[in-house]
């Protein structure tokens, strides 16, 4: 069985949680419905990506950016998503900035330590860099 893009599923537990949080208490979801929603979500990602990529290509860019995704949402008639997406993007950017500043601060602190006369053998090069930073 070839690995089609549609086979790249999103984690079941997360999809289930999103569904449950969207629906009122007391409502259940059959396994088949859950599976179908998960599949639909994967198709959504593929479709949105393709749409967004068209905008990037039109602008002669090789890198798909957030603006392209916003344009795609509009084209796909999901304008209702635009406002919450903009807000989420703001929060995300702030979070990323915070992470960057935190690792900058760490580096500065390390420098301070080594320049002080306190010869700490302990403050070795602990490159416990935030690997989560490169989501790429």
């Amino acid at each position, binding site marked *: 069985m070839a690995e089609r893009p549609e086979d790249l599923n999103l984690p*079941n537990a997360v999809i289930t949680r999103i569904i449950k949080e*969207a629906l009122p208490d007391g*409502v*259940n979801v059959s396994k088949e419905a859950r599976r179908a929603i998960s599949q639909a*979500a994967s198709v959504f990602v593929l479709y949105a990506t393709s749409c967004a990529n068209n905008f990037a290509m039109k602008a002669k860019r090789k890198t798909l950016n*957030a603006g392209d995704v916003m344009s795609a949402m509009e084209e796909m008639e999901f304008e209702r998503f635009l406002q919450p997406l903009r807000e989420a993007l703001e929060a995300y950017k702030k979070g990323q900035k915070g992470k960057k500043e935190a690792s900058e601060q760490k580096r500065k602190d390390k420098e301070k330590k080594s320049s002080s006369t306190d010869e700490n053998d302990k403050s070795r090069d602990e490159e416990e860099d935030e690997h989560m930073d490169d989501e790429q």
Partner: protein
Amino acid sequence: MAATESAAPAESELDRGGAEDEPRGAEPEEDAGTGQAGPIAAAQQHRLAKLPLSRIKSLMKADPDVSLASQESVFIIAKATELFVEMIAKDALVYAQQGKRKTLQRKDLDNAIEAIDEFAFLEGTLD
């Protein structure tokens, strides 16, 4: 019909869902998400997106025309997908309620897809 109407199965549904779902190289931390995804999820994205960005990115890269995608774009698509799931679940629920049911079934999804314009792209794509 596997679904039952009582409240309890919520947990077992989650568990069964977790078990049935990992034939491929599982990412156990996501599946341990019967509430236990704490440190890893936080490490991933500060809880701003529920769906794992790595998986979203893999899906995006399945498109041969896509060369590069900014981190932000991956995040936004993850977030949009979350909104999409919420939307389709709620829209399908309307049909379940019309049928006086408290359990969302596959046919409710099909009805929603047929009736709602925004879901037209899904027609013919689901197994």
